[in-house]
């Protein structure tokens, strides 16, 4: 399992990386490589040139931008996992990251890599969708933004333009006093790709009712999805179990779930409902008990 031959470049900055990309349509960016190198070993990916952005310092950051927390594309997942800013301001991301692969893959894998790879079962895309994150990329010397909603369109398929390099992602911060999160994933072994995953973030008002809720489901269909219908139904409610169950069931009624070696379509639908409900319940409980330090 030796990769097919390729040229290797280590650009000094993002624009140089984009120029290399533009010059060769079979060139690819390499960041953590935890997915790409394996695909290359199996010769399922055969880039003619690898553009190594790992050491472009400007792409690795975790920054408090006030309304958002901005994370650079080449920031290692293990750094995000341990970061106190992320833990307090984007707790849903902090909750999900430990589920990515193993410590050894999080040591190299990057946030940008996971987003650009767009595996339907991956945690980062799910959190990005759930929190309405905004991704930024560089192409032709310009920086542009794209919402997560518009980014993931199919299994391993994104709307990142050809020749563009993802530069970062911004996660909105929820400022309420009572914000809670929930995350669940089911797989055969703890570190495998999820069969189904669910993420939820809840803000409770002073009256204890749901002021704001975001629910996302991963690995059920070709890309991570928001349960907007459920969110609409649950806003203003007490988030009691029956209401949550009904809302997520309704929101997932029409999906056409994936079926593969690991799980049937019916399993994915049924468990998506179950995990989404659990995630919302966890988020509610977390919000009830929380003293949110976000400000």
């Amino acid at each position: 399992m030796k990769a097919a031959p390729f040229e290797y470049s280590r650009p000094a900055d993002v624009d140089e990386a984009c120029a290399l990309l533009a010059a060769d349509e079979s060139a690819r960016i390499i960041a953590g490589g935890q997915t790409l190198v394996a695909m290359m070993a199996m010769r399922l990916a055969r880039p003619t040139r690898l553009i190594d952005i790992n050491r472009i310092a400007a792409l690795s950051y975790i920054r408090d931008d006030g309304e958002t927390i901005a994370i650079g594309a080449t920031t290692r997942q293990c750094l995000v996992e341990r970061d106190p800013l992320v833990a307090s301001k984007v707790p849903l991301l902090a909750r999900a990251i430990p589920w990515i692969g193993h410590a050894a893959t999080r040591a190299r894998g990057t946030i940008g890599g996971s987003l650009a790879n767009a595996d339907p079962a991956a945690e980062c895309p799910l959190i990005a969708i759930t929190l309405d994150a905004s991704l930024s990329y560089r192409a032709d010397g310009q920086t542009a933004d794209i919402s997560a909603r518009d980014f993931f369109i199919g299994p391993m398929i994104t709307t990142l333009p050809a020749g563009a390099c993802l530069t970062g992602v911004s996660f909105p911060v929820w400022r309420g006093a009572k914000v809670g999160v929930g995350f669940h994933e089911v797989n055969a072994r703890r570190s495998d790709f999820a069969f189904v995953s669910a993420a939820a973030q809840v803000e409770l008002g002073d009256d204890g009712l749901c002021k704001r809720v975001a629910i996302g489901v991963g690995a059920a269909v070709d890309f991570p999805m928001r349960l907007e219908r459920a969110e609409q139904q649950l806003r203003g409610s007490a988030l009691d179990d029956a209401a949550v169950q009904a809302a997520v069931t309704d929101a997932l009624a029409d999906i056409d779930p994936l079926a593969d070696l690991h799980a049937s379509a019916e399993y994915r639908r049924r468990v998506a409902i179950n995990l989404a409900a659990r995630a919302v319940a966890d988020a509610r409980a977390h919000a009830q008990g929380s003293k949110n330090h976000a400000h």
Partner: protein
Amino acid sequence: MSEAPGRLRYVSTDRRVREDRRFVVGKGNFVADVSLLNMKHVALVTCPYPAAAIKSIDKSAAMAMRGVHYVLDGRELAEATLPLMTGLDTPNVPRRPLALDVARYAGEWVAAVVADTRALAEDAAEKLKVVYDKLPFVLDAEQALQTGSALVHQAHGSNVLLDKTFVWGEVDKDFADSPRHLSLRVKWGRSATVPIETFGVVASWDPWREILDVWASIQMPRYADQIGIALKIPVSAVRVHYDVDVGGSYGVKRGIKHTVLVGYLTRRLGFPVRLIEDRLENMRGGDAHGPERLFDVDVAFDDNGIIRSMKMRALENVGAYAGRSPFQLGKPVGAIVGPYKIQSVQYRAVAVVTNKTTQEAVRGFGQAPTNVAIERTIDEVAHALGLDPIEVRRRNMIRHEEFPYTIPSGTTYDSGDYHTVIDKVLAHTSYEDLKKERDRLRSTGKLAGIGITACLEPSGGNAMFEALINPKITTTTFMDSCRIAVDGMGSITATMHTTSSGQGHETLVGTVIGEVLQVDPDNIRVTRPDSLNSLPSGTPVGSRMAIMLGGAAFHAANKLKTKLTTIAAHDLGIPLERAAYANGEVYDRNAPQNRRTWADLVQIAHRNFHRMPSDMEPGLAVSHVMQVPTGGTLPTADGRVQMYPCTSFEFHLILLTIDPDLGLPEIVCYRIGHDCGTVINPKIVRGMTMGGVAHGIGAALYEEFAYDGEGQLMAQSFMDYLLPSSHEVPAVEIIQHVTPSPNTVLGQKGSGESGYLGAPAAVANAINDALRPLGISTNTLPIKVSVLGDMIAEAQEKAQEKAQANKGH
């Protein structure tokens, strides 16, 4: 035991395993570490279809690539070599390293590219143009049995390689006389023990010495023989280097097709050739899959749960070719009734070919799947009668005082104390408390179950299943050997004559010899010569090495002890009976101050011929070649035969929960009672059992070589073939018991398969106990999360509908 050991000094003590030293510093000698000057590398070209005729192979583009030396196809190889050795008498089902004219499974090797590096060989392999004509294929064993099925081997006329029925005892009468009957179908999914190191081999032909040097990650009996036969060279021209460390095998590292391939290439091309399978080659085409077996079991029993008779049909999906693997249907005959006093048995063994990857021997050689069939049946019998599953087992089990006990198929079990082992486990972990905990877990909304299994580990490798399954085979000799030499300065060197894959054999040999000679085992060098310098060895299969290598070392050491004592007696001028050996010295019992030290004896033997007894060879070199205990007789006309000399015993007790919404199982408590007779090295035996349990959990819950409808292996890499990590293996407590074997030198039995033989059955029983309140069951391994989840959901839905219906009227 042939010689009662008395108080043991080294055997059974907590000694370190000497092999560990080189492994913890990364200085093992694995085949990928073997590097020869001018060595070239092989990559394989594989067939993408489950069945296809090979119309043409265009090598030109590949041969034009940089660094490429040769492209070998099946036709050239077939003309120069004989087909690989098979176990059954099936001349129309030949097996070759490269497909000849027809490829019969997706992933079968069609051509081999030789290049300066593995990467260049892979580049060139992509450029080989092979034209195929697709052929009809069959994947399912039951379908393969039907007339009208696609034939995997046209010339064989059917897909059946073996269909043999044995009837031991009055089966029909016992069934007619029994008030109760039960039938069960159990499916063991295709899995294997999948070592982390793939198979690899380096071969180098020296045409002037006419020796083929072979280094391989090998665990196989008659390896050198098979190489010589296939390559049509004398076996004395084959030099297999046994000092290669094998990175795990558990049965599957048989690599004969890889070896014949590179053996041919090095002879043809004139330089050393290396083939290290990559993981994709290994999973699809390495021919290291394991059993895929369908059991139909019928039992006849009474209201007390006493099982009188059993019928079992075992249908094995062998894959496209068969080497030794169909014998995995025969080995369980030696323990076909498990630890129970079932008095008559009908056993039908059927092996069919399909267009799947070829199987190889897997740890236990068919015993683990068979134990699932037996133990699921025992549980269902208990459930049918409303009796406790441990109680039913106890009632049926052979009692301690009834050994040696001969089972209907002719094997005599040497010894056992099954009831005591169970007592010990339950004294350690209260069954009542476990049941209470199960009920408490159920009350929290989880599904929870207790899994029980009692089973045997036949050990010693008296492989009479060969002659039983294929009467043309008359092999009754199963050997192992040890040689000991004391050199001119008095240090001790022992040799063992096979490779090992982590079982600690060097430590075993040192410990046993040290025990006999009463010298520190750490001062005994143990080495592995090559096959031209070796005495016969049956290799580590059939959980045999403690018995056979331990036995050979014991006997050789005693020969040495006798020689030393005789030399001393002669030199002291005393009759032999007065000479006493202790701690490497010999003294006169009547006058202990008259003694000869180790150094004295070395001096006499090596340099003072004038002081030696007449008729004794000088020097201090001895050897022993041992036949397997209880071996040496062929099967009777009605198919009864003594198989393995010893039976170890294990009793598994598991508490398991299932999240009913997710179908996710979790083992909460794992106890195993284990009796393998005298334990030579406790660290080694414990490790074997722990590792076996992990393998068993993998087979029960995670591992499957699953195929899609198009004949493609879906689990081609470790992303889809799921190996248990430390998260998936719970803490296991082993409760050890010792019931010595009367058939071995120290009372030792084998333990190389322990844990694996019972864990899948125990997990299956636990899951079924957990599902019982829902009125559902599963007898298909592996028991996957999604399948469990769907089953539970369906049962809950039905229960709800029923409840609604009941309310409604």
